[in-house]
């Protein structure tokens, strides 16, 4: 937790229970905080004369062909789940509690595999486009690397993200376990419309079956409308070639749509008149309603946000004072227009500061200055996207789906801060 020393009674409160004006984080606001002496020095820096550290007294390590993080950061790991006894089927979560900014390091991008990570030799890998096309075509990696590319910074979210918060009891787990089936990367790839035009799509070809080269041959039907709009064959992630667990050597990427459709290890695109109704778009990735029916083809990931700090385990250990509330907001419909934060359980809200430009279908980092008075507090964030869609409460979603649908839970996360101890817990309120 970032903590500021609170000795300025003039800081403007903008909503209940100590939320402060966002100008504290805009432009000269941060300098003002410093000028007021609100940043407190950590205890360790105040102990005796400064020492010359050993690493200044001898040359450091040599250059390296592929960089590694500091040994002191090795504890930052994906949280690996999975089906017991079955190799490679399951999930791993991005440790959102350890990260900041908006870009997810490739090593920490969440995983969802249906039958493990294939070890694909790119020289042998092929992409087949066939079905209702005038020319069935096969592309090698060398072929694809010669096509024009586009680069966009966009989120990828599993539609099962935040499934833990549909359990009857609120789980006390890090924010990465509660919401870490999502990541955000700079994706570079070939617009699929170019390849489809080359194959020549027949007029009745409204759907495309996308199939992976994993042992599950995981497959989903994609509307041709999306394929021709903004779908890409992603080849690079954050500047380097895809990691095996993210689809090396190529994956489908569909901006703003549920992660399962971004088929990894893509090997085949078959143009069809109708959806194929694969197992993963019928018996899974459908959203059960209270009356027992289920909604199918719920593609876009709706507007959502989550406070990443404070959160479970990131407690207010330093006592009352000024803290930064920060988190992520995103929407499959476009840009984030506004994020609001409440410290009094939703009785009052204040607009958070947005870091940098809010990009299309991308993570947007928000921040809020908060003076914690040491009493109980209930923190929430609520995102509004450029279409005007507002993130719903958990109660609102439960009134439609009950607690039975594991998919598309975009409801508001609520954190309770305990009086005095500052311990943070996940609550449904």
């Amino acid at each position, binding site marked *: 937790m970032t903590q500021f020393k609170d000795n300025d009674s003039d800081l403007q409160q903008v909503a209940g229970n100590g939320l402060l004006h966002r100008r504290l984080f805009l432009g000269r606001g941060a300098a003002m905080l410093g000028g007021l002496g609100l940043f407190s020095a950590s205890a360790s820096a105040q102990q005796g004369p400064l020492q010359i550290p050993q690493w200044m007294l001898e040359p450091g390590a040599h250059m390296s062909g592929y960089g590694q993080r500091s040994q002191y950061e090795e504890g930052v790991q994906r949280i690996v789940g999975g089906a017991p006894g079955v190799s490679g089927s399951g999930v791993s979560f991005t440790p959102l509690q350890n990260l900041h900014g908006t870009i997810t390091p490739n090593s920490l991008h969440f995983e969802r595999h249906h039958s493990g990570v294939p070890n694909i030799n790119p020289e042998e890998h092929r992409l*087949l*486009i066939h079905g209702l096309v005038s020319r069935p075509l096969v*592309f090698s990696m060398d072929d694809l690397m010669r096509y024009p590319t586009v680069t966009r910074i966009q989120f990828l979210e599993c539609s099962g993200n935040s499934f833990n918060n549909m359990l009857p009891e609120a789980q006390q787990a890090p924010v990465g376990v509660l919401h870490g089936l999502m990541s955000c990367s700079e994706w570079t790839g070939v617009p699929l419309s170019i390849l489809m035009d080359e194959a020549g799509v027949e007029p009745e070809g409204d759907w495309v079956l996308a199939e992976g080269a994993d042992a599950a041959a995981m497959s989903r039907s994609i509307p041709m409308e999306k394929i021709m709009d903004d779908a890409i064959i992603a080849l690079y992630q954050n500047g380097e070639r895809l990691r095996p667990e993210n689809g090396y050597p190529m994956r489908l990427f569909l901006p703003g749509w549920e992660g399962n459709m971004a088929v990894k290890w893509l090997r085949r695109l078959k143009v069809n008149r109708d959806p*194929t109704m694969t197992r993963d778009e019928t018996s899974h990735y459908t959203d059960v309603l209270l009356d027992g029916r289920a909604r199918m083809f719920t593609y876009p990931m709706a507007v959502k946000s989550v406070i990443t700090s404070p959160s479970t385990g990131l407690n207010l250990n330093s006592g009352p004072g000024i803290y930064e509330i920060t988190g992520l907001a995103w929407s499959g419909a476009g840009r984030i227009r506004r994020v609001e934060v409440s410290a009094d359980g939703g009785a009052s809200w204040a607009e958070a500061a947005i870091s940098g430009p809010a990009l299309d279908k991308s993570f947007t980092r928000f921040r809020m200055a908060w003076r914690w008075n040491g009493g109980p507090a209930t923190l929430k964030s609520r995102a509004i996207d450029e279409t005007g*869609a507002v993130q719903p409460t958990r109660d609102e979603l439960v009134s439609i789906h009950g607690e039975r649908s594991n998919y598309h839970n975009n409801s508001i996360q609520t954190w309770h801060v305990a009086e005095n101890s500052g311990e943070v817990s996940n609550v449904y309120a």
Partner: protein
Amino acid sequence: MFMPKKLVIVLFVFATMPSNAQEGAGLGTPISQQNLAPWDISIQPNGDGLPPGSGSVEAGEAVYMQKCIACHGVEGSGGPYDQLVGGQGTLEQLQQVRTVGSFWPYASTIFDYIRRAMPFENPQSLTNDEVYALTAYLLFENGIIDEDDVMNSETLPEVEMPNEEGFILAYPTDKSMEEMNEI
């Protein structure tokens, strides 16, 4: 009709060129239906893609006992992994039992999924006859077909699943984000 010889040749060349060949970089390699067939494993609900072959309930039970029962339990009752049989009538209850019989809307998906992904440790190892037979066995255990019914490319698409009407299409009918957010 008289036509200069050169012009005839030129017209012929244009007529055989693909209509929109100018739209791509042209790096894809054409492939015949025969050569792409080994990858073309998906099955449509109307049966398109179903291969030759057939399988009986009895034959399916034999394959099931050998290759499926360890994960999916006696008669599809569930083991370490998914329950495949039963659960019909539970979808409106708080505790739903979603199985092939109670939840899956199309019989074609059973064939498609078994062939592409099962058995988990040896996908694409079953013969088409074995996949038809397993499909027949699961449909029979779920009370959807009779014990002496045989599944093949003619009969499988005719099977009506109990929960076919249990799904609402969110695309393209209510695809707008406003509607997504409301429901």
